[in-house]
């Protein structure tokens, strides 16, 4: 098969899996559903690999593109369903399909005793389909299709256990928060289309957008350079999907879903869509210094803010969720500061180690029968030795322990931030690295190493759950060493620049310091002392700086009040009572009145008929001008009279 027509099968394989599993799950045995789903994703991973090696042999600026069909061709808008497999989407599709495959395998074990096993796998396949549409889309409109699709799947999977009202509420929150971002995304697309179409470009291909940056640069809308406007609008769209500061609130709540979902959607793949979007449009972004600074400030603030919140959380999945938000902040910093590929590399390594940590946490939760509070865990290092080891790999990796993947990717970002001259942002990134190491060590220490207060009887995870963990652990260890190959594959020229030794080693030293602090401060006596002496601070941080409450007060309640008022006035009174019920009542009363005339007497009916005929005659005659009518009657009478007179 030629390269170009192979691209579509990366996307369509999971779709086929979804269609089979969704429509015919009734007739397929339970494990066959999971095998079909996993095979579908494996197939797209294999296709991605094949295309990856073909692409590697080509020059770095070529791309394999695949036009499936013409989606819409109307005046001034010509959009194809087309996929492009270039260096960036090659990386993304490999990561997405690979990590998805491992998580599919893991889910077979994790969801084994769930009654909705089949539905779970069909949703997962649908998600992988939309995610691959997102990363392989050739134009921004098709990307948006995938963007919305993954949002839908996220919603479906967060609320997967819908019997619990809190889960469906969390799903709803995620969906609505994402809608806010999507509105900005659409606004950005509209601006892009407005400027491109007024210059004679009627498709929204990324190529067209990226090669016409000067058009955006030279026009302005509402006094703002349209380049900056587009970049910022699309970035706000990305903050929704990638959980950045104003719109991050849905991600911690999204942990209500099954843990494989948290690992796949809310750590490894979907939340990185925003980073991918910025990287995809990097020519647009790098032309606008304002937008880049905007991204840097927002993401740096998000990174440190969520890292601080993560310090005090008790729920193991919440800690990982806040850590994800923080790491996404790193990715945005990496994309916006200096060399964008650093952010993408961190995306890849993060996908490995965060998926690993989530899946290990899931294995622990599964083993302890849905226990998520880290203070109820402990001494798992003896009882769940294999989970302890893989979780340890993830912990060291995210903490930036030397020569693990997180160390390379995070260091690269931090160094480039320093080199690009954003000293303040660099400082925030370094402090966040320290905090990351600290809270991760705290979690690891409390949940795994320290003696448990309660007697725990974990049951061992099956090998179908542990093997994906081992693979991810190996990836988390070794993927960092491929940084140079990765950067050269992405076609970016990296120039080695001299860094002061203090700057070069600060992140590592601070990370190690964070790990030590994590062990020291969680020791029993010190932690007791700290929690009593700083209880007010602890409470503020534990309650997440009351951001949810502020949103509730500022947005949700006024909105609820407005909705309720308009509902009561417009819906209830005007539409329901007056228009809908009013019409019905009017006809009812009219029927009652006219029913009086229908009394069953046949002769009365005949009289009605007579009157009806008379009225019709009258109406007909009234259309004739009055003088003519009088003349007509007069002449008839005269004629009749003369005729009668003849016979008399």
């Amino acid at each position, binding site marked *: 098969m030629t390269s170009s027509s192979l691209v579509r099968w990366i996307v369509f394989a999971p779709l086929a899996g979804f269609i089979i599993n969704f429509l015919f799950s009734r007739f397929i045995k339970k494990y066959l559903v999971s095998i079909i789903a996993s095979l579908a994703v494996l197939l797209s991973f294999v296709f991605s690999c094949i295309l990856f090696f073909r692409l590697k042999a080509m020059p770095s600026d070529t791309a394999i593109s695949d036009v499936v069909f013409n989606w819409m061709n109307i005046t001034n808008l010509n959009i194809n369903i087309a996929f492009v497999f270039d260096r960036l989407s090659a990386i993304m599709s490999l990561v997405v399909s690979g990590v998805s495959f491992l998580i599919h395998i893991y889910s077979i074990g994790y969801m084994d005793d769930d009654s909705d096993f089949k539905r779970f796998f069909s949703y997962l396949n649908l998600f992988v389909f939309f995610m691959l549409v997102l990363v392989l889309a050739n134009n921004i409109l098709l990307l948006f299709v995938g963007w919305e699709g993954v949002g839908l799947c996220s919603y479906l999977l967060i609320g997967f256990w819908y019997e619990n009202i809190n889960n469906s509420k969390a799903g709803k929150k995620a969906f609505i928060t994402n809608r806010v971002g999507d509105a900005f995304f659409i606004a950005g697309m509209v601006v892009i289309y407005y400027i491109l179409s007024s210059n004679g470009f009627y498709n929204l291909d990324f190529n067209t957008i990226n090669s016409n940056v000067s058009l955006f640069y030279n026009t302005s809308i509402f006094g703002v350079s349209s380049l900056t406007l587009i970049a910022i609008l699309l970035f706000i769209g990305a903050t929704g999907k990638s959980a950045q500061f104003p719109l991050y609130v849905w991600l911690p709540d999204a942990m209500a879903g099954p843990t494989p979902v948290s690992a796949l959607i809310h750590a490894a793949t979907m939340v990185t869509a925003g980073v991918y979007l910025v990287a995809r449009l990097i020519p647009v972004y790098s032309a606008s210094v304002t937008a880049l600074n905007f991204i840097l400030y927002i993401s740096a603030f998000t990174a440190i803010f969520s890292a601080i919140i993560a310090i005090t959380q008790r729920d193991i999945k919440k800690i990982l969720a806040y850590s994800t938000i923080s790491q996404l902040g790193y990715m945005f910093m990496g994309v916006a500061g200096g060399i964008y590929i650093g952010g993408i590399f961190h995306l890849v390594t993060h996908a490995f180690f965060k998926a690993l940590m989530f899946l290990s946490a899931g294995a622990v939760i599964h083993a302890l029968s849905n226990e998520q509070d880290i203070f109820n865990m402990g001494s798992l290092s003896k009882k769940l030795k294999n989970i302890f080891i893989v979780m340890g790999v993830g912990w060291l990796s995210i903490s930036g322990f030397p020569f693990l993947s997180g160390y390379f990717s995070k260091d690269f970002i931090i160094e480039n931030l320093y080199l690009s001259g954003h000293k303040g942002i660099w400082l925030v990134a370094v402090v966040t690295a320290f905090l990351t190491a600290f809270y991760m060590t705290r979690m690891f220490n409390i949940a795994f190493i320290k003696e448990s207060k309660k007697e725990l009887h974990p049951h061992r995870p099956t090998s179908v759950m542990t093997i994906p963990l081992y693979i991810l652990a190996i990836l988390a260890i070794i993927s960092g060493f491929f940084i140079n190959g990765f950067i050269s594959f992405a076609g970016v020229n990296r120039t080695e620049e001299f860094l002061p030794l203090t700057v070069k080693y600060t992140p590592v030293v601070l990370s190690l310091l964070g790990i030590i602090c994590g062990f020291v401060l969680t020791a029993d006596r010190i932690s007791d002392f700290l929690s009593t002496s700083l209880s007010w601070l602890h409470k503020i941080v534990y309650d997440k700086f009351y951001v949810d409450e502020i949103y509730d007060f500022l947005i949700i309640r006024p909105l609820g009040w407005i909705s309720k008022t308009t509902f009561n006035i417009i819906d209830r009174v005007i539409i329901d009572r007056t228009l809908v019920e009013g019409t019905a009542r009017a006809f009812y009363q009219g029927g009652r009145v006219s029913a009086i005339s229908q009394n*069953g*007497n*046949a*002769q009365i009916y*005949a*009289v009605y008929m007579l009157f009806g005929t008379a009225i019709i005659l009258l109406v007909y005659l009234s259309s004739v001008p009055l003088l003519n009518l009088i003349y007509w009657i007069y002449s008839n009478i005269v004629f009749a009279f003369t005729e009668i007179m003849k*016979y008399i």
Partner: protein
Amino acid sequence: MKFEFMIFSFILFFMSMVVFFKTTNIIIMLMGIELMVNALNIAIANLVWIKYSFFPPVWVMIIFAITAAEAAIGLALIIVIAKRMKTLDVKKLSNIKEIFK
């Protein structure tokens, strides 16, 4: 078109209409209707005097057929009503809609 026939038709029509409205006997009402149609028929048959018109006899025949059919249905209904209600007075038949429900 002979005017005297027209006058005759009018007179017959109005006479039968008066019969239809004044009587309470259902058979006589049916007769009134038949007579009205016949008066109409006379008026139509009268049109045969118009030059080159050969349709009026056809109409007349059609109306005859319709009248015959209508009379058959009407008489059948009257027989049913008479059997069930033991009366032919229209005023006493005003609750007919409830009885034949």
